[in-house]
C-alpha cells in the first residue's frame, strides 16, 4: 500500500505531501486542489504504463496546464513510499520520479527516476587506474539523463547502461513475466501500479458506455462497467445484486445484452415494485444509480492491492444512502490490502468517515496546494465527542479546521 505521496510542481502544487491510510477522504473548498491531487496521482500511476504526452492527450490537456505556475522550476516531481510484499518479504520501496518540461517545445521527458528499498547493492566500476572494482550503490534502480543503473538479482550485480530520452517511467518497460527473476521489486511495483485505478472521471456517460470483451475491472473511468458485469461469474453477480439491493431494495437484477455491433454489451437494470417489473436500459438508468452500481461493482473486482481514486463520490447519490455507500468503501479496503482516495463536498457522506481518514486540502498564502489532517487540533478533538465529522466541517471555517485559530 502507498504510505505517502509527495507531489511537486503539478498544477497548483509546489510541494505537498499526503500520508495515506486505507480509506482517505479529501475535503476542502471549491478549487482547493482536491481533484488536482487525484490527477497528479493518476499521472504518477500511469507513468508506469503510459507516456506522459499520451496521458495528456487522453485528457485533452496541454503541457502548460499541468506544469505549476508557482516558482520557476521546470520539473514535475513525485515521491511515493510504497509498502509491498516482494517474494514474501515486506519491503518499503521509495519511488522517486521527475519529469522535465519544455513549454516552448511542448515536450515532457523523464529526467530522473530511482527506486530504492533503502539497501545498498554491489556495482562493478572501473577506477582511475582502469581496474574493475566493486562498490556499493544505494537503491535498486536509478535513471539519470545519460545513464541508467539496474540491480539485477539474477547476477547479483548492478548494471549501468546509457539512457535514452523518454516520457514515461522505466517501469513501463518492465515485463512482469520476463523480468521476474532479474528485477523482482520492480516487477512487484509494476504489478501493484497495474492494480491502481483512477475513477476520478467516473461520469455517467462513461458508465453508460457499451463495451466489449472479457475484463476484470470496470476500466479507465468506468467505461467497461457493462463488460465487467458480463464477465462476472454467478457468485460475483449474486454478491453484486445483494449489495445493490441493500442500498436500493427495488432493484431486482442487473443483466447485460448484446446491442448494436457484435460483441458490444450494454447494461440492463430490472426493477420490481410488487407485481410490476420494469426493464431499464443503460441509456435511461439515472446518473446516481449508475454510480451506485459502479461502487458496488468495485467490491467484485478480483485484484489484490492497489489504490482506487474517486472524485466527488456523492455526485447524484441521495444522501439518505450515504452511510451504506461509505460502508461499501470501507468493506472494499478491508479486503485484499486495498486503498481508496476519494474527494467529497458532502458533509453527510463525511459523517460516516472516521476522523483520522479525513484530509483537508486548502490553498496556502502563495496559492499552492496544502494538505493536512483535518481533525488534529484540540478544539476539534473535543468537538468529536459530541459531533460527527461532517457536522464539524459544516460548522467550522477553514482556519478553524486547520487549527490556525489556536495560534
Amino acid at each position, binding site marked *: 500500500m502507498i504510505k505517502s505521496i509527495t507531489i511537486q510542481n503539478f498544477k497548483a502544487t509546489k510541494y505537498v505531501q499526503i500520508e495515506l491510510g486505507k480509506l482517505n477522504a479529501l475535503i476542502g473548498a471549491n478549487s482547493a486542489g482536491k481533484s488536482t491531487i487525484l490527477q497528479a496521482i493518476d499521472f504518477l500511476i500511469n507513468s508506469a504504463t503510459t507516456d506522459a504526452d499520451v496521458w495528456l492527450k487522453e485528457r485533452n490537456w496541454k503541457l502548460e496546464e499541468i506544469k505549476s505556475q508557482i516558482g520557476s522550476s521546470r520539473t514535475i516531481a513525485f515521491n511515493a513510499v510504497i509498502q509491498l510484499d516482494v517474494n514474501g518479504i515486506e519491503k518499503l520501496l521509495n519511488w522517486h520520479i521527475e519529469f522535465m518540461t519544455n513549454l516552448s517545445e511542448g515536450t515532457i521527458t523523464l529526467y530522473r527516476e530511482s527506486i530504492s528499498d533503502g539497501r545498498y547493492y554491489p556495482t562493478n566500476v572501473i577506477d582511475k587506474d582502469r581496474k574493475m572494482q566493486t562498490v556499493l550503490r544505494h537503491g535498486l534502480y536509478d535513471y539519470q539523463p545519460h545513464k541508467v543503473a539496474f540491480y539485477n538479482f539474477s547476477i547479483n550485480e548492478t548494471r549501468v547502461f546509457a539512457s535514452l530520452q523518454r516520457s514515461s517511467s522505466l517501469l513501463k518497460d518492465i515485463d512482469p513475466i520476463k523480468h521476474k527473476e532479474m528485477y523482482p521489486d520492480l516487477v512487484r511495483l509494476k504489478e501493484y501500479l497495474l492494480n491502481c485505478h483512477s475513477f476520478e472521471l467516473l461520469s455517467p456517460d462513461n458508465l453508460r458506455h457499451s463495451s466489449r470483451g472479457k475484463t476484470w475491472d470496470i476500466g479507465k473511468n468506468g467505461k467497461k462497467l457493462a463488460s465487467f458485469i458480463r464477465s462476472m461469474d454467478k457468485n460475483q453477480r449474486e454478491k453484486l445484486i445483494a449489495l445493490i439491493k441493500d442500498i436500493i431494495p427495488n432493484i431486482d437484477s442487473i443483466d447485460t445484452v448484446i446491442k448494436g455491433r457484435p460483441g458490444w454489451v450494454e447494461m440492463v437494470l430490472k426493477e420490481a415494485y410488487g407485481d410490476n417489473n420494469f426493464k431499464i436500459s443503460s441509456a435511461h438508468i439515472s446518473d446516481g444509480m449508475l454510480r451506485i452500481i459502479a461502487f458496488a461493482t468495485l467490491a467484485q473486482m478480483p485484484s489484490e492491492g492497489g489504490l482506487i481514486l474517486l472524485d466527488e463520490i456523492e455526485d447524484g447519490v441521495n444522501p439518505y444512502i450515504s452511510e451504506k455507500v461509505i460502508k461499501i468503501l470501507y468493506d472494499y479496503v478491508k479486503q485484499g490490502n486495498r486503498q481508496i482516495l476519494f474527494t467529497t463536498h458532502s458533509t453527510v457522506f463525511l459523517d460516516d468517515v472516521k476522523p483520522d481518514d479525513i484530509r483537508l486540502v486548502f490553498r496556502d498564502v502563495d496559492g499552492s496546494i496544502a494538505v493536512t489532517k483535518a481533525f488534529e487540533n484540540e478544539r476539534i478533538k473535543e*468537538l468529536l465527542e*459530541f459531533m*460527527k465529522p461532517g*457536522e464539524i466541517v*459544516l*460548522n467550522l471555517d477553514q482556519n478553524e479546521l486547520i487549527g490556525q485559530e489556536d495560534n
Partner: protein
Amino acid sequence: MIMVVMCGEGSQDVGKRDYQTDHWIDGPAAALFKVALDHSHNRACNITGINKYELDKEISVQKGVLKIVKGHGIKAYRLARYALLKRITFAVCYVDCDRRDFDDLHREFQKGFESVTSVKGIPMIPKTMIECWLLADEHAYQKLFKRKPQNPALPSKPEDLRGAKSEPESNYPKHVLRRVISQFHQVPDEYRLLLAELSDPDVLKSHCPISYERFYQDILVFFTAT
C-alpha cells in the same frame, strides 16, 4: 399522561430499547424522573427513550449551531430537535457530572435546549454520577431489604464521593454502591432501578442539595409553567 423524550449515556442510567421493538425499558434515571414528576406535580409520564448513538444518527447538527451551543449543549440541542420531530414538548437529557463543573454543565445543557424554543428541556446531571443519588435514601434500602444499610452505612454527603475507579475499595460511587448492597448479599445490577423507584425526592433533595435539588427545581418550574 405527559410524553417525555429522554436521552442518557447508556442502559445503566436512562435505560434501553427492548430488542427489536419500540418498547423502552426504564433505567434508574428514567425511574427517578418519573418519581420526581409524580412527587412535584402528581403526574405520570410516558418516556420515549433514545440512546446517544441513535440520537447522533437521527439528528444532525445544522450549520451555525456552534455559534449558539457548545459541549454537552450539542447533545441537548439534538434531543430538543428529536423531541420536535416526535412532536413531544418535554425532553430530559441525562449526563454524569463526573469531575466537571456542575453549573457550567447545566448552563451548556440549558443553552442547547433553548436553541429549540418549542421544546422544554430539563438537564439531569447527578453530581458525580447516578449512584450518588441511589446512595442518598436509606429508607429505599429498608423497603427493599427490610433493614437500613449499616455496614457500611450510606454516606452523609453522597455528592462528595470521589475515588479511583481502578481501586475497588475507593470511594468511587459505583464501588460504594456495590459495597453497600453486598451487605445484603446482593449485587447492584438488579437493584438500581428498584432503589430509584423507591427513593423519596424530599430525602434526595436534602442529601444531594446541589444536583438533585436543581433537577427537582427544574421539574417544578417547567411543568408548572404548562
